[in-house]
């Protein structure tokens, strides 16, 4: 094991997979110089024909990924900010996520649409969305949201070689965070959740960047005698329903933490399927900690108030257990 930053883990994985498989190509806006660092140095090592800067043309870019993948390449299409995937949405929604099915599986479409997501940096509404719920409803595209450098490495490796398109969302504010990463090849299967921490009182399902504040919440609540079973789905499509159901059946309580707006969020979907499948095991209502249905504001004071954090997660759990909400300081 070695400590690595998430962005470094992604960079090394891209490098390793490009070295391993000459069919892996990377293209997108400014991938040569690399704004975030995830594609930095790849052009020098793997050649200008496999690492290509695109014009700012998301509409053609998302479709080019489909064409190049259909023609045999494993395409990493870097869309920079996840919000820009809206600009290139047609080919993601109508082509990439549909063509395998519509052609009865005639082709593989190994595409990774990569971008950063989420708030917390005063990037304002057009650079701060958590857009994974939108992809969840397309039917035909996988969605990975790594919370740790090790998972970023393992999930990205799986995503690159998966015959289906995958949206790979890196938490914008988390690229610099460090974590232990296994030496050598590390693979995380898409669709396998991880139990981050075990506990008997309440299940907390936290998505993407929400795993870290949920973990801090769980650590603090343990001192108050509350045991949190913390689950990180790692991918919301496919969703590891069985691991979530198993935990909810064990604890009888569920809190879902999601950085998306509440309406039709991953949180609301997970709440719905648990209500459907684990109703008899529930001893309390299901709670969601999400973002209100507004655009994320710019000013730090406003933005901070809207995003889930350790304090809001802990208070939700305490109330659920019939304990008074503490005046928790925000993390």
């Amino acid at each position, binding site marked *: 094991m070695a400590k690595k930053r998430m962005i470094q883990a992604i960079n090394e994985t891209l490098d390793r997979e490009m070295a391993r498989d000459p069919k892996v190509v990377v293209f997108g806006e400014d991938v040569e110089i690399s704004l975030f660092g995830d594609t930095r140095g790849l052009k020098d090592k793997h050649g200008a024909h496999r690492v290509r800067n*695109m014009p700012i043309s998301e509409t*053609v870019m998302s479709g080019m990924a489909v*064409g190049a993948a259909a023609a045999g390449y494993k395409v990493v299409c870097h869309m920079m900010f996840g919000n820009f995937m809206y600009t290139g949405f047609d*080919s993601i929604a109508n*082509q990439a996520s549909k063509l395998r099915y*519509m*052609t*009865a599986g005639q082709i593989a479409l190994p595409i990774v649409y990569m971008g950063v997501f989420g708030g917390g940096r005063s990037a304002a509404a057009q650079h701060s969305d958590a857009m994974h719920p939108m992809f969840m409803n397309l039917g035909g595209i996988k969605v990975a949201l790594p919370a740790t450098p090790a998972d970023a490495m393992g999930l990205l490796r799986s995503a690159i070689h998966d015959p289906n398109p995958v949206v790979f969302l890196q938490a914008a504010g988390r690229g610099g965070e460090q974590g232990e990463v296994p030496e050598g090849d590390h693979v995380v299967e898409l669709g396998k959740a991880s139990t981050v921490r075990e506990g008997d009182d309440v299940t907390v399902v936290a998505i993407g960047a929400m795993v870290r504040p949920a973990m801090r919440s769980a650590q603090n609540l343990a001192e108050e005698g509350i045991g949190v079973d913390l689950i990180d789905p790692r991918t919301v499509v496919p969703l590891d329903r069985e691991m979530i159901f198993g935990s909810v059946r064990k604890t009888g309580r569920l809190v879902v933490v999601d950085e998306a707006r509440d309406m039709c969020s991953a949180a609301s979907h997970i709440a719905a399927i648990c209500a459907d499948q684990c109703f008899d095991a529930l001893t309390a209502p299901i709670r969601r900690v999400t973002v209100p249905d507004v655009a994320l504001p710019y000013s730090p004071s406003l933005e901070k108030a809207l995003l889930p954090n350790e304090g809001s997660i802990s208070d939700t759990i305490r109330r659920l257990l019939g304990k008074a909400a503490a005046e928790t300081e925000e993390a």
Partner: protein
Amino acid sequence: MSTAPSDVNFSDEQMLGFYREMLRIRRVEEQIGKDAKAGNIPGAVHLYIGQEAVGVGVCSQLTDDDWIASTHRGHGHYLAKGGDSKLLMAEIYGRETGMCKGHGGSMHVADFSKGIIGANGIVGAGISITTGAAWAAQMDGTGAVAVAFFGDGAANQGVLGEALNVAVLWKLPVIFVCENNGFSEFSPSSTVTAGKIVDRAKPYGALHEAVDGNDLIAVHQCAARAIRHARTGNGPSLIEARTYRQRGHVEAEASFLRSKYRSDDEVAEWIARDPIPALAKRIMDAGQASQADLDQVEADIAAEVAEAVKFAEGSPYPDPATQGTNFMFA
């Protein structure tokens, strides 16, 4: 590009081959039109009738290693690129034996083994997909090309500008073939399209040429120049083939439209310029085939169409108990 040379020399066999391919598309589609009217086809059908010279003129110069992407009006391109008529018919009938096992239908016929990325229900979608396929072909270095067929309606999608820009910059072996058939669905092109579509390549510095899309030989010559340009690593081209949509936007339109969007005289004028009789006359005038030869082609195609219908009608619908979700994350 220069204009088409007048001294074209295609062999008798080639000329009859062009005729056969065009007639094959025509007769298959006439059958589909009849079947749609009779209520035998579950979804919408958009026919290519009148535009066959474009698909055949271009695709007759491509191999299975070359890629094409087509439009919602895509049966003709599929057949011209070597697609099987039985599998096509079964797909349009929604049967399990269709080339997409009934999951795509008329607007989504595809056969990747023949380089047919497929018809597409989103206007202009093939433009970006073929640009990507051309990038793949460039990386492969085999000289393969990609052709995007799209209509005058799709030329008004912004993606054409984006694609021309990147294709010129990267010198991609892609040929953008705009079939200007006069209509964006139910709107005459002149009411929704500014300037000349062919001119849209100019500011990017892409090769461009307008051609009579009802003249098989002219299309063939024009496409030959664009394909050679692409295969030799010189980049993209835009061809505007001027043709006419003899049928409606969609076969069922008479049942829901309450007014006309074109005159009967206009339709009649273009039917008089139908590309198939024009080619037949050219072949006969040049003595490259006899009436008996053409009759034989007609008979062969009639048999193929009958066989395709029989195959489709005799095939089962896909069973929802075993199919329906099995190609999701296959």
